[in-house]
């Protein structure tokens, strides 16, 4: 078999080249992992703008610490752990607390950027059903934000579809079983809150 096109380099190959000083190789790593890093930061912060800043910081830190990457874990897993720590630092920062105390819902909030998903009418649903579904989604998003942080983080990371439970376990620094328990507990709490509010569910 003659390969006219070079096989795509693996992450490990790109890491080795980046460690040798190849900036383009690191750029390729950024391109491959930017969405995963961004969404991990988004799960922690809830704001796309802040998640974008943290993702950039995470990549810069990863580049500076590239020499310490030994290849024991996958590069993405190692990178996501760095991004998560940066996101937590940002979440704990006093400046962020001050900003949120002034404007609890800054521009770029998920309700504004993703509302169009629920607004798309479905042929099988009436307009009333679509409106009810949108209201349910808004209510659920609000309830998810009120969950305890550990449960919320696990639920968002698992529900994003970007990460395996093993990767989430490495990001959060807890066993896989704990991740699964937190996800299950988060769902249970949400259902209890919905029941307490007397919300009737339609099929």
């Amino acid at each position, binding site marked *: 078999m003659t390969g006219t096109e070079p096989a795509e380099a693996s992450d490990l190959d790109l890491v080795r080249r980046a460690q040798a000083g190849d900036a383009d190789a690191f750029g390729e790593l*950024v391109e491959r992992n930017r*969405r995963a890093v*961004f969404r991990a930061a988004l799960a922690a912060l809830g704001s796309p703008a802040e998640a974008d800043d943290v993702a*950039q910081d995470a990549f810069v830190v990863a580049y500076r610490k590239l020499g310490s990457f030994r290849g024991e874990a996958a590069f993405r897993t190692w990178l996501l752990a760095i991004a998560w720590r940066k996101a937590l630092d940002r979440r704990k920062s006093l400046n962020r607390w001050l900003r949120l105390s002034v404007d609890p819902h800054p521009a770029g909030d998920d309700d504004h950027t993703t509302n169009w998903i*629920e607004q798309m009418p479905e042929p099988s649903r009436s307009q009333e059903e679509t409106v009810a579904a949108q209201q349910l989604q808004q209510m659920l*998003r609000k309830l*998810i934000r009120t969950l305890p942080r550990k449960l919320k983080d696990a639920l968002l990371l698992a*529900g994003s579809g970007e990460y395996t439970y093993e990767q989430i376990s490495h990001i959060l620094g807890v066993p896989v079983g704990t991740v699964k328990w937190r996800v299950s507990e988060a769902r249970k709490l949400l*259902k209890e809150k919905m029941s307490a509010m007397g919300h009737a569910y339609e*099929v």
Partner: protein
Amino acid sequence: MKSDQEPLDLDAAIDRAVRSMMTAEPRPGMRQRVLSRINEAPRRAFPMLRLAMAGGGIAVIALAVVLRDGNRPIRPIEEPARVPGHPVVAAPPPRVQAPAARVPPPVSAPPTANRTQALSPRIPRGMVVAQSLPSEDPVRSAAVGPTVVPEAPENLLLPPLSTIQELQPPGDSVPAITVAPIGIVNLQPIAPLQGQYPGPSR
């Protein structure tokens, strides 16, 4: 609403809500932004924090210097002037006695010749002593038993700390201090009260 489908619907609603919260995309150009930051000159992280730490360190050093100057020991007592022919004796450190002490002061050997000329003893209040001094009351003067010293006047109490003077080395001008004994001076045996004690007049 069908009860067997209720959990499934709510789970599906939760999944949709979570996906809607996590579907945002990063701004385009992440690669260029990261590479440009990497190629920049490494800037110091947290410059304000470093400045604040430096200022705090300077403040701590200044405070330590001020406290050290404030806690310097008291200037030592100046040595007494040398007198020709007399060796200089270093003054003992000042001693301050507790004002509330009820323990009688130590008694030195009284001079036998000038007991009557001794200074009034400084006797704490309530101290029971034998009556060694002559009294105007003939009944009391005949009494053999011990009597309770009445409450001492103010001038017999220990002076306040501020008036305590520093001890001076012994010299010719300092008179000998004698203290009247507080022990029982009258060595006559104490006779039983009944039959001999006249008692108060009724």
